[in-house]
């Protein structure tokens, strides 16, 4: 934390274990544990200047200028006054220091805010409100509901039965579901008795501070007894206390030693490819500078030998230096003069430009999401131009592409399809927000948020059509949802998967309200009548069975099996009499699948009482056997689930975020490849792939890699490659360029047609192994889009890493959850979706906004412009500095290589700072080729950025050549024009000072006009900057050369009168005109011919815009793609195994407290239940949940997701 010895010393004697005693500050102080104050700031008032300067001079350019400054102090070498270097250097250092200071002030502020939070601490047998920073290890503190946990504490006691507390760990790991912690009984007995707590003198011996969030080891010794401590008893800083009135805790780790702070590792500093290029270029410049100086020094040596030694009559050598030594001095003198080659203001200007372009992102109203009042934010301000070069996007699915809201969209009942709305001509109407909704007011228990548009279905229900009734009865009975009824008629469903929630809610609204359940009964209200079904068995869902069934006995005593599942599976088990209905339903299913909806097929079967009794007996036997239980149960299920009668099918829409398909289409038009990395199952992921346009029916093929062994995977990958490109299977990867460390860059391989690739978790694990990663990468990169399912957070990062390693491309990762953090950090650019679960993704991202669709604006508009501006800035910046400097080189040949500058020293000082700074900044902040609307119209405009066409080594070389030409013109034209000429009154005008003024004026005009040529977008500000800079040049020049300044400081302003005496001469102005024209015209010619002969995409679009002279037609709102898919099943069900057991076990029952704790601590092991789906782990929305509201009690249903999304 601190830069001074203290901490370093402490670190050296590493803590091996931690020992502390409650309520004993003296004892604990002897160990010098860190207090709870945190410090993320870097400087304080006194250390700021030395530390900041030290850091700044570590930058090579700054260090170089310091070195120059030293050179300039040596009189023999000094070819320029010291101020020419000091002024820019001080300015650059000041600007950077100011920026660092503001950053640090902000850190101080947030540190202070955190450190000054209040918490109740037990001091001197009394509870006192103390600042967080004053809390010490060994203190006992009291936390109240919804408070942040102050430090890492050992839970002592709580208000809740069994000493439980509920905490939310969103800030720590991004999960919003509550976790439960339980105190030791021995400490729990202390309760909230302050006296007892103050007497508590337990000693804790535990592990030293570390960053493992999931592990804690230690022991509590109290009253001579030793109690083991584990993670279950520790609350970590950063958590929030929920649903717990109060709790007491013993501080174990404070401030910097807490696990939260230990995890705040240094985030790796991301650099852009332009940054790296710039560093290379600066090195090249150094080499080139050395080269030029060597030539000039050699020239000097020759001159001194041939002419200088004769010229000593008038110009004696200093102290009798030899020619060789003079040459050596000249070398350094030229290093000083030519220093402007190494642009000191380059880095600062680049930072300013990036900052400006970042502000545009923050300010963009089109990236502001009104519903959650979140604007976009550029959290990192140094990566902008890289946004214009993205080639690969890695996206999370849930919460990023989808809203994780399932809506019951359509269904097919007994061969009739419901859900579409038709107008009177029979045309299907696009469903929008304004389409008339079905009125469910006839049903007092309906969910007001449920939206359906097709009135026919309600009519059918009201007409008491038996099939429709059976359909919804099935939906109301066959599920594992829990219902909570706080008040009469106010139902809350808690479903493990949102799919089920949607189905049960649909049944609820259509009059089959699932009301409550016990382990052996389900109570539903059927069209206003309450009926209780006896629940006899749940034939649970799993990924192999792909179906679930319930066996119930109706109040009338009828036995029935209801089953829902994947079409492929259920169709095999249907009764032959259904074949006709099957055909019709299949058609509907294909239609649903084509629209990207998730489908389930529903079927039922009436059971004979005898058969069932016998089956039930066998089922009981099977479930109590120890060996082979699963297989035997499966067999039994298989047996009873045959001869089913088809009821129909449901189609659930996994609601995409707004505009996702359009965005993906736009991005793929911009030649960006999108890989979806999701923790979801293959079917779900594939389904989303289709619905958001990533996979398309018209693709030549979609390869599914799902091998279970490395050989299988390799074979499948090879097969995929052969079918894409027959000759690509066995050839070695295209020899690309070699990166450092022998890593080859894999070139893109062109294939005919479009392909997609879906790879599942286990296969991906094999594919990411070293031996196979190239196979995988090559195959994946040949495909248009790639979907990886069942991916762990680590694998997400690995995939990104793989692409980064072998492809020289810029990658972007976008996600919303804690599981995306690794890939967000790994990718060149990380984007976090804000306003979703947790803050982790946002906190580790570089850019955040609320909606996936803003990504296209971020890339195609902001990114593209930033890249364009940065490249234009760099090439112009190098041009203007090189041109400026090279003139000295030519002049050297005429001044005896004496390191005489061409220009006035003031001009040298101010050229970069005043005369040319603003126009180029203006260009880099305002320039655009075409406006945002046209950028969307032509996504191909993005491609040059990916190929890095605007600024690269070649462009740099070109720009140096251009400078070379310009500088020659700038020197030799005035040279020839001034040779032997005089003023119109015969007086001198070919003197050095007039020549200097002439050359610098020519230079100013040339670089200004050149800037005008570069600029595509002349706003009033740009015009003002360009003309203003020229005007300022003249104003400053006339001032500097005025009598007044000379009279104040004669030796500092020796150019007095030069401007007046030479700028009133027509031939001077004619020379300026000639020089600037000669510099510019070839450029215009070259560019014009280039546009004519091989126009770039930018030229084409710009001319098109010019011809159109109006804003482009708005992008057509894509109608929902309607296709029928005959190729694939629309089955996708994000359900997990194990909930059937849970529902029937009765464990979910609330209260008495005893069972509650049991449910928490042992749920996993006791039922053999392991939640597989993501939604089992945590709820994917950050919206306030019931569980969080203080008045709602928490049950084991935490594992369920409360269905209260407003959009449902």
């Amino acid at each position, binding site marked *: 934390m601190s830069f001074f010895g203290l901490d370093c010393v402490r670190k050296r004697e590493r803590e091996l274990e931690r020992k502390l005693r409650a309520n004993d500050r003296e004892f604990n102080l002897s160990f010098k544990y860190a207090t709870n104050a945190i410090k993320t700031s870097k400087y304080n008032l006194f250390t700021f200047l030395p530390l900041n300067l030290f850091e700044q001079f570590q930058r090579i350019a700054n260090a170089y200028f310091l070195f120059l400054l030293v050179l300039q102090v040596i009189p023999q070498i000094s070819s320029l006054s010291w101020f020419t270097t000091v002024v820019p250097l001080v300015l650059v250092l000041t600007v950077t220091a100011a920026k660092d200071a503001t950053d640090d002030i902000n850190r101080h502020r947030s540190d202070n805010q955190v450190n000054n939070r209040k918490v109740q601490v037990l001091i001197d047998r009394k509870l006192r409100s103390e600042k967080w920073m004053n809390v010490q290890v060994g203190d006992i503190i009291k936390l109240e509901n919804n408070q942040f946990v102050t430090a890492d504490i050992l839970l002592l006691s709580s208000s809740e039965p069994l000493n439980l507390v509920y905490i939310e760990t969103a800030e720590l790991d991004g999960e919003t579901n509550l976790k439960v912690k339980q105190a030791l009984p021995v400490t729990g007995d202390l309760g909230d008795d302050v006296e007892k707590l103050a007497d508590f003198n337990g000693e804790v011996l535990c592990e030293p501070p570390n960053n493992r969030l999931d592990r804690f080891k230690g022991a509590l010794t109290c009253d001579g007894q030793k109690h083991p401590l584990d993670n279950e008893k520790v609350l970590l800083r950063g958590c929030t206390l929920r649903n717990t009135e109060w709790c007491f805790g013993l501080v174990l780790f404070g401030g910097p030693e807490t696990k939260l702070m230990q995890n705040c590792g240094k985030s790796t500093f991301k650099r852009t490819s332009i940054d790296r290029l710039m560093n290379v270029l600066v090195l090249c410049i150094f080499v080139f500078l050395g080269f030029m100086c060597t030539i000039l020094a050699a020239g000097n040596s020759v001159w001194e030998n041939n002419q200088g030694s004769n*010229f000593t*009559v008038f110009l004696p050598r200093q102290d009798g230096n030899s020619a060789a030594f003079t040459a050596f001095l000249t070398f350094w003198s030229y290093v000083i003069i030519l220093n402007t080659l190494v642009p000191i203001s380059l880095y600062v200007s680049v930072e300013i430009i990036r900052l400006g372009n970042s502000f545009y992102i923050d*300010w963009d109203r089109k990236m502001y999401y009104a519903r959650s009042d979140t604007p976009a934010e550029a959290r990192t301000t140094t990566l902008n131009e890289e946004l214009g070069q993205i080639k690969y996007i890695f996206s999370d699915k849930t919460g990023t592409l989808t809203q994780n809201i399932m809506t019951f969209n359509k269904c097919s009942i007994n061969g009739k399809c419901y859900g579409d709305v038709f107008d009177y001509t029979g045309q299907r109407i696009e469903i929008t927000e304004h389409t008339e909704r079905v009125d469910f007011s006839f049903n007092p228990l309906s969910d007001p948020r449920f939206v359906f548009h097709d009135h026919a279905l309600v009519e059918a229900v009201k007409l008491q059509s038996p099939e429709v009734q059976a359909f919804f009865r099935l939906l109301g009975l066959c599920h594992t949802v829990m219902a909570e009824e706080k008040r009469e008629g106010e139902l809350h469903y808690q479903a493990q998967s949102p799919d089920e929630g949607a189905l049960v809610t649909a049944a609820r609204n259509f009059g089959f309200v699932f009301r409550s359940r016990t382990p052996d009964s389900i109570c539903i209200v059927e069209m206003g009548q309450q009926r209780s079904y006896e629940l006899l068995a749940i034939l649970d869902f799993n990924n192999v069975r792909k179906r679930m069934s319930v066996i119930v006995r109706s109040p009338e005593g009828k036995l029935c099996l209801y089953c829902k599942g994947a079409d492929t599976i259920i169709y095999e088990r249907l009764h032959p009499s259904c074949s006709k209905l099957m055909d019709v339903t299949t058609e509907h299913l294909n239609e649903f699948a084509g629209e990207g909806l998730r489908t389930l097929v529903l079927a039922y079967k009436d059971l004979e009482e005898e058969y069932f009794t016998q089956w039930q007996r066998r089922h009981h036997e099977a479930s109590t056997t120890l060996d082979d239980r699963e297989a035997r149960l499966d067999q039994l299920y298989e047996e009873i689930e045959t001869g089913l009668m088809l009821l129909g099918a449901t189609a659930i829409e996994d609601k995409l975020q707004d505009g996702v398909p359009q965005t993906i289409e736009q991005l793929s038009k911009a030649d960006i490849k999108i890989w979806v990395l999701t923790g979801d199952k293959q079917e779900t992921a594939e389904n989303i792939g289709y619905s958001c346009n990533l996979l398309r029916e018209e693709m030549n093929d979609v390869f599914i890699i799902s091998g279970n062994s490395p050989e299988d995977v390799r074979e499948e990958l090879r097969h995929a490659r052969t079918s894409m490109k027959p000759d690509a299977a066995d050839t070695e990867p295209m020899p690309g360029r070699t990166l450092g460390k022998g890593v080859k860059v894999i070139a893109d391989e062109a294939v005919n047609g479009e392909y997609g690739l879906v790879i599942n978790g286990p296969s991906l694990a094999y594919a990411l192994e070293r031996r196979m990663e190239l196979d995988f990468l090559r195959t994946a990169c040949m495909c248009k889009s790639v979907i990886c399912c069942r991916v762990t957070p680590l694998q997400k990062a690995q995939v990104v890493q793989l692409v980064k390693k072998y492809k020289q491309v810029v990658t972007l990762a976008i996600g919303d959850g804690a599981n995306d953090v690794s890939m967000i950090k790994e990718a060149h650019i990380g984007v976090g979706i804000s306003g979703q679960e947790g803050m982790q993704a946002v906190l580790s991202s570089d850019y955040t906004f609320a909606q996936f669709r803003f990504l296209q604006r971020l890339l195609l508009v902001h990114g593209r412009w930033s890249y364009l501006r940065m490249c234009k800035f760099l090439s112009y910046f190098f041009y203007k500095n090189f041109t400026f400097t090279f003139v000295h080189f030519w002049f050297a040949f005429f001044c005896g290589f004496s390191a*005489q500058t061409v220009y006035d020293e003031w001009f040298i000082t101010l050229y970069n700072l005043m005369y040319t700074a603003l126009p180029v900044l203006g260009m880099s902040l305002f320039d655009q080729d075409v406006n945002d609307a046209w950028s969307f119209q032509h996504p191909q405009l993005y491609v040059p950025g990916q190929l890095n066409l605007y600024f690269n080594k070649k462009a740099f070389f070109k720009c140096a050549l251009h400078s070379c030409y310009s500088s020659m013109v700038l020197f030799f034209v005035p040279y020839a024009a001034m040779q032997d000429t005089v003023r*119109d009154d015969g007086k001198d005008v070919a003197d050095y000072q007039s020549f200097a003024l002439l050359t610098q004026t020519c230079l100013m005009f040339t670089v200004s006009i050149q800037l005008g040529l570069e600029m595509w977008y002349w706003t009033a500000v740009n015009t003002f900057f360009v003309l203003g800079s020229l005007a300022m040049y003249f104003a400053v020049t006339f001032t500097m050369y005025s009598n007044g300044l000379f009279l104040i400081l004669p030796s500092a302003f020796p150019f007095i*009168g030069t401007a007046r005496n030479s700028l009133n001469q027509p031939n001077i102005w004619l020379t300026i005109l000639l020089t600037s024209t000669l510099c510019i015209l070839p450029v215009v010619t070259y560019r014009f011919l280039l546009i004519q*002969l091989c126009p770039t995409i930018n030229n084409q679009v710009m001319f098109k815009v*010019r011809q159109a002279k109006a804003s482009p037609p708005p992008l057509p709102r894509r109608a929902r793609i309607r296709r029928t898919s005959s190729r694939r099943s629309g089955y996708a069900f994000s359900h997990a195994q194990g909930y059937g057991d849970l529902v029937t076990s009765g464990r979910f029952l609330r209260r008495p407290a005893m069972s509650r704790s049991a449910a928490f601590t042992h749920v996993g092991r006791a039922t053999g239940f392991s939640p597989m789906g993501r939604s089992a782990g945590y709820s994917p929305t950050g919206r306030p949940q019931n569980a969080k509201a203080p008045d709602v009690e928490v049950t084991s249903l935490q594992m369920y997701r409360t269905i209260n999304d407003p959009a449902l």
Partner: protein
Amino acid sequence: MVKHEQESTNRPDNTAFTQQRLPAWQPMLSAGIVIPGFLIIGAAFIGIGVALFVTSQSIQVLEGPVFFYYALSNFFQNHRRYGVSKDDNQLFGDTSYFTSPSSSCSPYQYDSSNKPIVPCGSVANSMFSDTFQLYQVVNGTNKLVPWDGQGIAWWTDYSIKYRNPSVTPLQNAFNNTVKPINWTKPAYELDPTDSSNNGFINQDFLVWMRRAALPNFRKLYRRITQGDYAQGLPAGNYLLNINYSYPVVDFGGRKKVVLSNVSWMGGKNDFLGIAYLVIGSLCVVMSVVMLIVYAKFKFPDEE
């Protein structure tokens, strides 16, 4: 309403600047601008070129007013060490710099007996020292051509940049100093006849001190503006009397004298005129080439 405003407190401002919608002019290198532009520039340049060339050619030696220049070649007045070797404060008449001249004047800061040199430095020390008289030979007698050595330096140099110390007599200011080593007389005796042309404001001195940009240069020596010769030098025989004292052979330099008059565009220099003519013609040629290219490729096409 209030609530609504609160809800969208984070909404960014809708200004043309923040939304990057500033109105702008978007010029482009289209054929309609470039080709006529080149033609116009070409024509204009040819026009200027002709004017300049004719003017330059018209400069005659014998039409008045005639200026008399001396020229030196291979003389590096633009050498860095040469250029810095003077003391502006001293030349501004600041007597404190008389006793301790700037170190930049070294080795012409102090003489061998450690007395300060005034004016110090290489520039002053190397002052051109040849003198000239021009005679017209009329009927066998030499008639001195009268000329003016006053109006030859810049007004700013004469009145502001260079000053004599305000000590009378001037000589007293130079007590305890020595003259530059190469000089034959001290500064206060440069023109003892005219106090406004003596010391640091002697115009020959000023002309010399305004150092040339290039190794070959000419400097104005005298203007022939008065008397019989104000309208120019009539044809005839002239005699130039040169008092030769300035060594140039050592460094391979050469001396020249030039008699010339001037025009509105200064001295005789054909370069500008020719350059304008050449570039003007090139522009016209290029515009034809571009026209051909444009006719052939027709970009932008209506696709």
